[in-house]
């Protein structure tokens, strides 16, 4: 025991030497603009993400309006943004609306909130570090992201309108052949620039987790949230360069007259539109997991915390997440079953795709077994975590149809696909983001959010999401294509008019329901009751320091002794009279007993 204590002290001294406490910045500029504090950068990402979430959501309302009332003037918004056409969305504007909705939501709303904000906020705090490994790079990555936001705004002001080639930006439509004008160019550039930012962030996250874990914080004692975030960072660093190269070649085609993606009568040489699809989906499929892995991690932790139980088979969940990360690189071809793909390749991608359902099932089973025989507290974060399991269940299960070639021949490019990926990328990622926000809000801002308002927000959000994206699945199953300005020009889609309209009503309600969140968020920010250090009574490291934490997080770096969810341990109950124990907490006479229990029990 003495030897181990000695080692601990040595590790601690090294860690302290590696992360000295600096003076807090004093100028406004260094405090709020060019701050090196990961917690401030997290909030910068959060604000940016929430603002663009509102923009993306508003665009979604325009799409829903068009499907409910094709060609009818849009109330309020139409007068502001579509004055020239008397408030009516025209076909050319419509394609800009859905293109910008998709790109903004994926790259400029979910990504900054889930990865930028919670990645920055959680990683150092949860592993017991004073900041990121490269604080300066961290600030740079935010401001590069901010530059990409300027390009997005610029795209809206483009000479021929905003980008319009769909979020997938398939050439030749996305070249000057289909969408000339600066709007499309600026948006491709924005995706490229935001990719640069993501790569810098990813390198920082990975290095931080490898280098700055507190003494005793072994990989298998990290909260699942950290696992999710770091695996996402790995995928970002590996695959965003591929997206970057696809975007760069597209910019060359648009600006320099190259023909990488052009083919057909008017071209000379060997361009190929399908090349872009390969590059895009080599990134694009991992992207789906980039956006869901942090959500899985967060939900895995929260379900354990609020069931007052250790997460079921922690090691299995970690393994499953690593397996998904690995497999995500070799399934992308299922997006291309109808492109005339080689049949052998198509079938290979199908088999690999279906194999991903094994680790996904393991995660689900672990979640379900975590809440079993727990002591469930239905707090707002817990409700959102359970809601994520529900909506991701729908999203994951509907993916089965699309992973297999034959059903995909019918379902590909229908609203069924749209419903499926909204349940996974939009619903599950955002519901988990809300869970995280309600959970870490006290730590971030030092104040508590209103629970009753949070619960009302939960019900509106999850019921709304289920109705809206469920409606999309149903019309897609019935054959409605995606991206149709007016679906009802088709005779066989006429009967779906009412369902489309009801789905739009649900979407309007879902959007309006977010006002509850906006009110709760700002009101709590200003007037919420002061939060204590550990309001949820859980043991991860961030709850062992004040809310909000001081700039250097930990006065003394902790020595970690156990896993993240050692809840309801009979021994702790007996000695401390409570059901939780901090990851770095020392039991009264712990030095006398053999080493602390390992993370996974």
């Amino acid at each position, binding site marked *: 025991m003495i030897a181990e204590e000695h080692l601990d002290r040595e590790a601690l001294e090294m860690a302290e030497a590696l992360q000295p406490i600096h003076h807090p910045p004093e100028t406004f500029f260094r405090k709020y603009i060019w701050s090196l504090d990961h917690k401030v950068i997290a909030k910068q990402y959060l604000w940016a993400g929430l603002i663009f979430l509102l923009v993306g959501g508003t665009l979604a309302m325009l799409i829903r309006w068009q499907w409910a009332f094709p060609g009818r003037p849009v109330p309020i918004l139409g007068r502001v943004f579509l004055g020239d056409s008397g408030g009516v969305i*025209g076909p050319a504007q*419509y*394609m800009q609306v859905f293109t910008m909705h998709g790109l903004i939501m994926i790259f400029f709303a979910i990504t900054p909130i889930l990865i930028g904000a919670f990645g920055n906020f959680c990683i150092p705090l949860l592993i017991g570090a004073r900041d990121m490994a490269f604080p300066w790079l961290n600030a740079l990555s935010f401001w590069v992201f901010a530059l990409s936001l300027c390009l997005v705004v610029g795209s809206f002001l483009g000479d021929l309108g905003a980008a319009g080639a769909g979020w997938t930006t398939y*050439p*030749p*439509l996305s070249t000057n052949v289909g969408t000339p004008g600066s709007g499309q160019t600026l948006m491709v550039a924005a995706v490229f620039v935001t990719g640069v930012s993501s790569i810098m962030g990813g390198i920082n996250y990975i290095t931080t987790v490898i280098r700055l874990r507190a003494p005793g914080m072994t990989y298998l004692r990290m909260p699942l949230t950290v696992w999710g975030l770091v695996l996402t960072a790995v995928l970002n660093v590996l695959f965003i360069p591929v997206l970057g190269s696809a975007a760069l070649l597209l910019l060359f085609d648009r600006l320099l007259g190259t023909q990488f993606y052009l083919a*057909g*009568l008017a071209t000379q040489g060997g361009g190929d*539109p399908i090349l872009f699809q390969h590059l895009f989906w080599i990134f694009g499929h991992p992207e789906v997991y980039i956006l869901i892995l942090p959500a899985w991690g967060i939900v895995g932790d929260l379900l354990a915390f609020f*069931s007052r*139980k*250790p997460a*079921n*088979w922690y*090691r*299995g969940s970690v393994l499953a997440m690593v397996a998904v990360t690995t497999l995500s690189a070799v399934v992308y071809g299922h997006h291309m079953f*109808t*492109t*005339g793909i*080689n*049949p052998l390749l198509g079938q290979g991608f*199908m088999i690999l795709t*279906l*194999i991903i*359902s*094994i680790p996904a*099932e*393991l995660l689900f089973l672990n979640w379900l*077994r975590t*809440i079993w*025989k*727990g*002591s*469930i507290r239905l707090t707002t974060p817990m409700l959102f975590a*359970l809601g994520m399991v529900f909506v991701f*269940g729908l999203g994951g*299960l*509907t993916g*089965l*149809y699309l992973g*297999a070639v*034959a059903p995909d*021949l*019918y379902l*590909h*490019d*229908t609203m069924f696909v749209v419903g499926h990926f909204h349940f996974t990328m939009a619903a599950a990622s955002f519901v988990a983001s809300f869970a995280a926000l309600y959970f870490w809000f006290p730590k971030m801002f030092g104040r508590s959010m209103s629970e009753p308002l949070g619960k009302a927000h939960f019900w509106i959000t999850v019921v709304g999401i289920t109705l809206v994206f469920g409606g999309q699945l149903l019309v897609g*199953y*019935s*054959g409605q*294509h995606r991206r149709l*300005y007016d679906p009802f*020009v*088709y005779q*066989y889609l006429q009967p*779906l008019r*009412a369902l489309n309209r009801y789905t739009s009503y649900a979407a309007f309600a879902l959007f309006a329901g977010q006002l509850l969140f906006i009110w709760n968020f700002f009101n709590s920010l200003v007037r919420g009751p002061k939060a204590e250090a550990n309001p949820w009574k859980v043991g991860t490291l961030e709850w062992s320091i004040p809310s909000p934490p001081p700039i250097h997080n930990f006065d003394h770096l902790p020595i970690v002794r156990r896993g993240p969810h050692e809840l*309801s*341990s009979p021994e702790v109950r007996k000695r401390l009279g409570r059901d939780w124990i901090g990851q770095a907490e020392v039991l009264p006479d712990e030095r006398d007993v053999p080493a602390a229990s390992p993370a*996974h029990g």
Partner: protein
Amino acid sequence: MNLPLLLAGPLGVGLPVDASKEGWRIDEMIIVTSLFVGLIFLIMVVWMVWSILRYGPEHEAVFDHGARRSSWIWTVLVALLIFVVVDGDLLVRTLIAVNRIYWNFEWAEQQRNAIRVEVNAHQWAWSIRYAGPDGKFNTADDVVTLNEVVLPLDAPALFQVGSTDVLHSFNVPNMRMKVDAVPGTINRMWFTPAKVGDYEIGCAQHCGANHYKMQGMVHVVEPARFQQWLAAASANSRQAYDPQDIGAQWGWDWAEHTRVR
């Protein structure tokens, strides 16, 4: 048994009428998978509701990491069971359907009554071409139409699909079949019409502002009527043929392009 019709509700939800000989396989896969998936989802929801009701704050949580071998082995076994049954069913059905039918162009090509159609997609219409009596494409007797495909009942219809400008996707929902139209490439698809009637063609791939207007129609008629129509239309074509009009000669030689990329 027509399960899709059972699912057709008051909101117009349901698979479009299947007018092809092969589409039932896709319908069956969708229905069977839906049953499996529905059951799994139901079990999941019941489990969650039961846990919330049964194991509330007054219940003392069981301190269990689920990490003993006797415990995690069940997690793995259940996951594998679901995989083998649900994914396995889908996988086997798809492999059979794709290899024997949907992507088995060689078989379709060998059928003596097969009809060959070239489709040239462009913003925002479908140009359609039949070889005419000489059996050769891009000759004076070719039948060329816009957005209209006429097919005889019960004969395999083979399509070669290309595009002159951007990506499109030639989709006939009632035949459960679509294939992308890619500039610089000829893609293939086939199905066998099994019901007389008119079935809509749509473009499934975003192709610009008027994507939604890129409609067409498949007319399935009795074989005798088809032959009549083809002969009459071909005679018309020969009369109207203009060798100077290069733009109208967009057809390609069928045999050269049967290789799938």
